[in-house]
């Protein structure tokens, strides 16, 4: 058993926090390993001394607000970090949206049929060109161009 684990068990035992079965097993282990008993007695001595200090020195346990300040600071830090994260996410989403929109617009401009592209050019070989319909600016119509050749 690791010394740290044994120490933890011995402290729990001394403070009455071990289940009875575990406490009995630990007692049996300490009986078989007397070298570990000295560790246990030193821990008991430390617990006794700590107990004495708590009883004799109430001035060490006065309210100072220190733990609250620590806790309050951590909470405010956490909420601040959350706010920054949300703001960063909104900015990122905005930038991504902007690029996505411009990319889509670019792609829409690029995706035209070769035939339509051909007809938009003013070429003597063009057989069709595109005209807006009157009153319906959203719709376009191919118009046959009489060949000059």
């Amino acid at each position: 058993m690791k010394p740290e684990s044994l120490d933890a068990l011995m402290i729990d035992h001394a403070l009455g926090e071990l289940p009875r079965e575990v406490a009995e097993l630990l007692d049996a282990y300490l009986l078989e390993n007397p070298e570990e008993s000295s560790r246990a007695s030193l821990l008991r001595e430390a617990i006794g001394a700590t107990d004495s200090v708590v009883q004799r020195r109430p001035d060490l346990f006065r309210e100072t607000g220190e733990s609250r300040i620590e806790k309050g600071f951590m909470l405010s830090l956490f909420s601040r970090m959350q706010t920054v994260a949300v703001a960063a996410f909104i900015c990122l989403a905005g930038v991504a949206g902007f690029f996505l929109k411009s990319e889509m617009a670019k792609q829409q401009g690029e995706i035209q049929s070769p035939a339509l592209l051909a007809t938009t050019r003013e070429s003597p070989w063009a057989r069709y060109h595109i005209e807006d319909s009157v009153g319906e600016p959203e719709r376009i119509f191919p118009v046959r161009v009489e060949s000059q050749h």
Partner: protein
Amino acid sequence: MEAIEQRPDLERLFKESAEDLARYFSRRHDSGEKAQDLVQETFLKMARRLETGNAPVHLRAYLFGIARHVSHAAWKRTIYERKVRIDYPDDLTAAAEPDERVRAATEVIEGLPELQREILDLRFSQGFSYAEMAEALEIPIGTVRSRLHNAIALVRDHLRENNPE
């Protein structure tokens, strides 16, 4: 209806814990009169919370959790009223000559963070279990255990340094 059902519990709790609570406040504020006011304030808050339907696991630990908030609020009020940092008098039990063991432990404990000292106080002054301390201090039980173990291990190491044989 619920409040009526819980009132006997509160009365019993008052009988069982008022003295301990007064001792707790006296230790934290060094004023007997003030401690009694804080006990009353704590029980009032406890009654109000029970009326809102809160059902704490450990009634006494929950009470001390409220007491902790009340204590801190009282400390803040005092600070704002006086506008100065409170300097508590030195060791009240200085007359009792501490032995080497206690002196060594004191050196360690006075250097611990306040939360760790609160854990020691609740454990050795009020006899709280790990679970009760966790509820009173609003921290996980594992934190209570590790902080308490750490404090005791530090005291043990300091005792060993001072008394190497």
